[in-house]
């Protein structure tokens, strides 16, 4: 958005105007300044590049390789990396490179769905608890305490055990265990905003709690929530991979990276690439989200400096 605007002559001056003439101009200008700040952070740019690459690979996976991630070729099992199979083949003769590329889709699906489920729930619970206060707040915060008192992976494991293995249930289990920190953050933000003058002004104008929370409190909590979710993405990827590794997440023949490590484990000593390569992919993607999250924190959170 702002990058394309900067290519036109004059638009840069418009964006950086000292006295913006409209609300849109002010907002775009602020976004542009933040983008410039972000550009100066090389680590954050690497993170952004990795995440963008993940999205592009996930979208174009079938076009980046001529091999199918599911086609078995038992005559060519456990082949070392070669010109035909650049990352070798697995125990069923499937091309590891093709599976890795298609695995990006699953990783993105898990991360995206968890974020979509968890973000709004945490935001709503936190803002409502923080704004209304009283017993409602106490009860909701007790509930988050209980969830936070658990090791996250173990709680997710227990939920998957009850729901049954599978990628959908893994996503549900991760989401159930992931929302409390967001509720905590949203609540803390709300408490600092709740008693400010502009909220009192809106209330005196006759706005109800729903309007105040959705229209005025939620937008102010968004940036810290986005930072936290981005930083948590790596944790979500690692948990999902752990579930896949234990055989409780994505089921065969899905090319999920954790499950690929698990199936390659039996051939680790003689055919090390089958198990180790998907792990490298997990590391790179998690690192990307961590770097991006750190960069976003620098840009979006003025208190963090």
């Amino acid at each position, binding site marked *: 958005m702002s990058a394309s605007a900067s290519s036109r002559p004059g638009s840069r001056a418009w964006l950086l105007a000292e006295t913006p003439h409209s609300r849109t101009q002010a907002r775009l200008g602020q976004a542009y300044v933040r983008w410039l700040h972000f550009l100066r952070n090389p680590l954050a740019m690497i993170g952004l590049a990795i995440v963008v690459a993940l999205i592009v690979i996930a979208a174009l996976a079938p076009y980046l390789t001529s091999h199918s991630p599911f086609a078995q070729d038992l005559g060519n099992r456990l082949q070392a990396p070669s010109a035909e199979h650049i990352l070798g083949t697995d125990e069923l003769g499937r091309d590891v490179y093709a599976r890795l590329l298609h695995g990006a889709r699953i990783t993105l699906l898990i991360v995206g769905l968890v974020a979509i489920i968890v973000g709004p729930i945490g935001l709503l619970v936190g803002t409502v608890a923080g704004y209304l206060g009283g017993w409602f707040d106490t009860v909701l915060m007790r509930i988050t305490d209980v969830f936070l*008192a658990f090791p996250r992976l173990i709680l997710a494991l227990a939920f998957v055990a*009850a729901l049954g293995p599978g990628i959908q249930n893994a996503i549900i289990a991760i989401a159930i265990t992931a929302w409390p920190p967001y509720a905590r953050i949203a609540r803390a933000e709300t408490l600092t905003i709740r008693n400010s003058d502009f909220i009192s002004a809106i209330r005196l104008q006759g706005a109800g709690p729903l309007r105040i929370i959705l229209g005025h409190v939620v937008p102010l909590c968004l940036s810290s929530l986005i930072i936290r979710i981005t930083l948590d993405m790596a944790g979500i990827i690692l948990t999902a991979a752990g579930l896949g590794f234990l055989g409780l997440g994505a089921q065969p023949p899905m090319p999920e990276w954790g499950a690929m490590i698990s199936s390659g484990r039996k051939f680790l000593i003689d055919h090390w690439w089958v198990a180790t390569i998907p792990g490298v992919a997990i590391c790179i993607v998690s690192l990307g989200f961590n770097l991006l999250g750190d960069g976003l924190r620098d840009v979006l959170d003025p208190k963090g400096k």
Partner: protein
Amino acid sequence: MATRLVLTVLVTFLGLLLVTFFIGRVVPTDPVLAAVGDRAPAAVYERVRMELGLHLPLWQQFWIYVQKVVQGDFGTAVLTGKPVLSDIRRVFPATLELATVATLLGLIIGVPMGVFAAVHQNKWIDHVIRVLALFGHSVPVFWLGLVGLLILYAWLGVVAGPGRLDVGYFDVVDTVTGVILVDSVLAGEWEVFGNAFSHIILPAAILGYFSLAYIARMTRSFMLEQLRQEYITTARVKGMAESRVIWRHAFGNILVPLITVIALTYANLLEGSVLTETVFAWPGLGSYLTDALLAADMNAVLGATIIVGTIFIGINLLSDVLYRLVDPRAK
């Protein structure tokens, strides 16, 4: 204050049981069918339903459940045919051993690293700690375990492979504590000790790596805060040796918050141990939990979950109490 603390812990514990109760009773399809199988006649089905107390209202079922758990009755594990509690008692020492060695490794390396980084702020050591932490947040622990096994065991042969002991050393020493490193010392069997050590060092180092990064970072920030204080300047002005200023005066004052950090990392290791134990075939709580999960043995899964959750709550409480005891300002 004390009553408030106890109340908080009780409510959290009840919440924990509520969650496991919910998972065990409400989520799965039908606990009766799981117990009798789908070919059982209607009379048997009804009898088992009564025995399990499933005809009672939910809150009453929950109350019975709480009473059982408090008495240490988690039911029988289908996998082993023994009570879940006795199973857990059998496997727990292995996890304790692993987590303790890992924490010790994290402490021995992490604390001096953090102190050094605080004294030499913004030098290379700071970057090392940052990279270690970043990598620790990005790497799957089970993958690191596999790579460690591949390189150090299969290729270089400098450590022993999966398991707690080589087969030849099984049952050489009597089980006293269940912690092989301690038992072998008690029995004076140094060969067994050496073998056990060679088995534990790699999984412990991998688990310890994750606590090391955190401990080093926290030590660094605690030390930075202390080194800014005026009493440090006073000590230096008096002509005190710099090493004494750092280790005696500043370090002495960060011990209290450091205890909290160590307790928390120790609790977190329980979580990391689930995946690590699976990779290293380490017969502890984590392996028990995964075996139970794969067999859908709900009594064992929920029993292990409650135990881990309780340890978590207990460690948090302990560090809270310790903090209040040691630091007079916290009262």
